[in-house]
Each structure stands twice: as C-alpha cells, then as structure tokens.
C-alpha cells in the first residue's frame, strides 16, 4: 500500500522461502477446511470415508448421498466464493492503492443486494432468479461507478468516492424496501447477511467459470500490480498503460465479486480482511499475495460455513456472522503483533 504497510518481521535472506512456506500452510489450511466441511454435520463422515466416497462416485449409500448431493457442492461453492471475494479484495486494494478497498466500497455488493432484495421482497415467486438478477445488479453498479468516476481516465480516489456514494444510494433503496415490506423481510435478511444454506451444483456451475478466468487474469496481473504500487508516474515511466491496466484489473475484480455475492449474498469481511491477513504475513508482493489470499479466502469461508451450520445445529447461522465474529478479533490480534 504505502510506506506504512505493516509486516510481521521475517528473515530477509530466506524471504522467498518464508513466503512459499506461508502459501503452503494456507493451502494445507484450505485443504483441511474442505475435509472438515465434508466430514462434519448431522452425519459424521471420517476423512478416509470421504476419500473413498469421492473416489467411488455417487452410490445409493446414505453417506454417499449426503456427501455428493449436499456437502460437496456446498463446500465447493463456499470455497470458490471465498476465493473470488478474497481475490477481488486483494486486486482492488492493489489497483486502488487503498487498504480499505473491497467489493463493498466499489458498490458491487450493494448492487447485488438491491437486485436480490427486489426479487425476494417484491417478487418472491421468482426466487430462483435471485442469483442471475443479483449478478446483473452487481455488474450494473460496477459500470455505474465507472461512469461516475470517469474523467480523463480513472483516478483511484474518485472510484472509491463514487463507490461510497453509490453504495449509500443503493443501501437506502434496500432499507426502504425492507421498511415498506417489513412482513417479508426474513428471506431478504438471510440474503443480506450472506450465507451458503442450500447452495448446490447449479450455483457451482455459475461461479466456477468466473473463478477460473478471474483467478488466471488476476495471477497474470500480479506483476503489474507490483509495478502500480510504485505510483502512476513510475509505472508510466516503466512503460505501463496505467489507465488501461487499472480498468482491466478493476473489471476482473468486479466480475469475481459479482459472481460471489450473487451466489452467496452479501458476505462481508472476506474481501476486506483476508487480503490484509495475507499481507501481514507475506508482505505486499502480489505474486505471492494473490494466490495466498485466494487459498486463505477458501479456507476461511469453508470453515466459517461449517461452524455456521453445526454450532447451533439444527439451527443454521449465516456464515457471514461466524466469519466476522471469529475473524475480526483474530485479525486485530495479527495487526497488534505486526
């Protein structure tokens, strides 16, 4: 971000080694979270059984049914939502050079939120359309912010200010709808808090292409993000087309975030805090930061969702609440140690 970026001290000589280690630890964490998510629930399944069931494919066995029809798709959707939100946040924080940038600031979440609430409150019989409509809402909000912020190119500060303003406007729309139709608030509320209840294979199909394409473009853009961190003047002096790169990378982040919030609702926290967690441990080199954020995002979201659906079982909490309740204090702990 700037000269004040805090990073936990690490041995400089073995810097690359340390960063790779952190990435591996994050990968193990993500893998572990996936296994735990598959194994825990009303029916407990041991890790060996999970591997056997996954190898065998769908059978008539009850556990196999639970894993293949319920837990696997939900877990994978959660992991990909986590990947997308964390990547979107990491890219936006890099592109906009602002540690507070995340899909919420860009107004993407509010766009998805308003579109989703309109469906859930005004046209509840069209509930199956929530995901695509929310995606359109998110992208419409992103485009609107672009147009508002455009003046001889895109300035990071103007994007953020336009995002905050659009976010407030759309938020007012959401609140208005909730007040006018207070009898139908419940369904919309779950959506606004964000969670993965009843997410299944169709949702996975929807989000997967964005994760693959967005993740690939994000990783390819990591070197450019590093150059951009040196300031627009330096980046331009090094031959980068700064405005074009900024536009492209912001668009990638918008697609990642829109696909995630349209599937899982307005999950906060991941996009903002996960990249920071990774940065505190790894430093600001985006070539490590982006993959690490993606892995950490997947792990954090999967684990939160597992807790959310088991902690007060059979009552299910939205994953967003769990994530904030556990993640925020942990992040503050990291921040104080740095």
């Amino acid at each position: 971000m700037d000269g004040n970026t805090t990073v936990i001290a690490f041995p400089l000589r073995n810097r690359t080694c340390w960063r790779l280690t952190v990435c591996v630890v994050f990968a193990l964490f993500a893998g572990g979270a996936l296994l735990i998510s598959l194994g825990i629930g009303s029916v407990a399944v041991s890790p060996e059984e999970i591997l056997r069931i996954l190898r065998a494919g769908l059978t008539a066995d009850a556990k196999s049914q639970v894993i293949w029809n319920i837990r696997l798709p939900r877990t994978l959707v959660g992991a990909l939502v986590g990947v997308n939100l964390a990547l979107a946040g990491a890219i936006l924080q890099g592109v906009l050079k602002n540690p507070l940038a995340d899909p919420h600031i860009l107004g993407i979440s509010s766009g998805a939120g308003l579109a989703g609430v309109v469906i859930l409150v005004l046209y509840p019989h069209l509930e199956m359309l929530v995901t695509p409509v929310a995606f359109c809402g998110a992208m419409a909000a992103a485009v609107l912010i672009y147009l508002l912020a455009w003046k001889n190119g895109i300035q990071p500060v103007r994007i953020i200010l336009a995002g905050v303003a659009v976010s407030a406007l759309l938020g007012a729309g959401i609140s208005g709808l909730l007040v006018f139709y207070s009898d139908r608030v419940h369904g919309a509320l779950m959506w606004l808090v964000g969670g993965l209840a009843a997410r299944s294979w169709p949702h996975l199909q929807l989000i997967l292409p964005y994760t693959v394409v967005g993740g690939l473009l994000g990783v390819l853009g990591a070197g450019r993000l590093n150059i951009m961190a040196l300031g627009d003047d330096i980046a331009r002096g090094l031959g980068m087309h700064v405005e074009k790169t900024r536009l492209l990378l912001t668009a990638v982040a918008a697609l990642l975030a829109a696909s995630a919030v349209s599937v899982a609702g307005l999950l906060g926290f991941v996009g903002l805090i996960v990249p920071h967690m990774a940065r505190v441990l790894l430093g600001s080199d985006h070539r490590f930061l982006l993959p690490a954020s993606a892995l950490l995002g997947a792990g954090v979201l999967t684990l939160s969702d597992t807790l959310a659906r088991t902690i007060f079982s059979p009552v299910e909490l939205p994953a967003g609440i769990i994530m904030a309740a556990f993640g925020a204090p942990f992040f503050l702990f990291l921040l104080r140690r740095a």
Partner: protein
Amino acid sequence: MPLLEAKDLSLGFGGKPVAEHVNLCVRPGEILTILGPNGSGKSTVLKALSRNLKPLNGVVYLAGRDLRKTDGRDIARQMAVLPQSPRAPGDITVQELVTCGRYPHQNWWRGSAPEDRKMVSWALQQTGLAEYAERPLTSLSGGERQRAWIALALAQNPHILLLDEPTTHLDISHQLEVLELLAEMNRRHGLTVVMVLHEVGQAAKYADRIVLLQQGRIVAAGPPREVISEETLRTVFGVEAEVWLDDVTNRPVLLVRGLAKKADAAGG
C-alpha cells in the same frame, strides 16, 4: 538529431495553461537542467516530456518519434523517469525495487532472464548499493533511498534519464552525492540527463545547458555562464546576487546578497 525534443508545447491542467510556447531540445550525452522559481512550470514541463501530462498543444519527440504514437514499453526502454518523492510499499527490498526497472524488457511469456539479473546488479553497483540489495528500502537513509530509485531507472538501461527535483528533502552532502552520481553516469556511460532543479548554484555546477523558465515561458537557454547572471537572478528569481566565473571550471559561481527590490523583480 536531438534525443528529446519538445515543439511548441502548451501545458495545463484544464483552464488557463501553466506553460506556453515551450520549445526545447535535448542533445545526446548532455546534462540539461530545467531551472526556474516556484510555480514557473518546470515540473509541468518535465511531466509533459515524460508522458505524465498530455500537452494541450504541441508534440514531444523521442529520437524523432512522436511520444503519443509510440508504444509505452518502447519508450521505457530508451527513457527512464524519476518523479519527485516517489513512494514504494513498506516491505519492498532494494533488489526488488531495482528489478522493477526491468519491467519494460519483460513480458508475460518471458519472465526474469540472466540479462535482467545482470542489469540489476550493474545498477546496484553503479549506485553503490550492492551491499544493500537485501535490505528493505525503508531501512535506508534518504540519500541511499534516492540512489535506489536512480538504480531502478538505470536498470531500465535507458539512453536518457528524466528527474524531477532529485535532491528535494536531502541534506547538502546527500544532494551532492546524488548529483555527482548523475554526473558520473553521464561522463562514464554517456547517459543523457534532464533534470528539474530549483537550486541555482547546483544547476550552474552540474548542467551543460540550462533552460530557464519564468511564469510558464522559457526566458533563457544555454550554457550556465550565459544563463546565470546578476540580471537573470534579479528579474527571474527576485534576488540580488553577485555572479562571477570560476576560472577552473568556467562555470558561474554566485553569492546571494538579499532580496531584490520589488520594483525590479518581475515576480513569479
């Protein structure tokens, strides 16, 4: 052919132009200093030369090619730019920073090559930072940090280096250190240097030619002994000074006596 040439530039940030009718040409192998009082438009001119400001009018040519019609990387392989007080992420090491200078020579299918590593260590050596390679940039002193940014520019392997007030925020010995480094690169490797300075004495000491700006117009251009005079110091900078020629260097030396009377000074 001039290495860098500006033809009838009008520059501004919307509204009234900050600088008008700016014509200048940079010859290969020289140190050209853009000099002028605060608000004279010298940084604005450098921004236009370095593509960081689109001219309202006029064209900048690099080796005969219109800057606006040339690919950015192509330009960056010939011309390096160092803005005033650049900033980097807090944890970047000197080596990582300098390696960024290889960006215009790389692309997505060809990452870091042996040639890149060679240029980076050459740049670190030239700037005396070889031992600091693994250190975080923030742990360096102001002068060392400025040399690290210069190393970034050198790693680009440019023919010409543009700098905006490279000595700001440095104490006097570090100022000289930076200027000596640039003079050395110019002498030994023929690097063409264009820099904005606001310190008249330093411009007189290090520049081959000075372009003097006042209120957005070039009022004088030429070798220091032609441009720096008691007259120009009074009318352009508003100070009374004594100027004489150093026999050894054939460059002007000045002693500032005080502010010029308001009636004599043109302001700026």
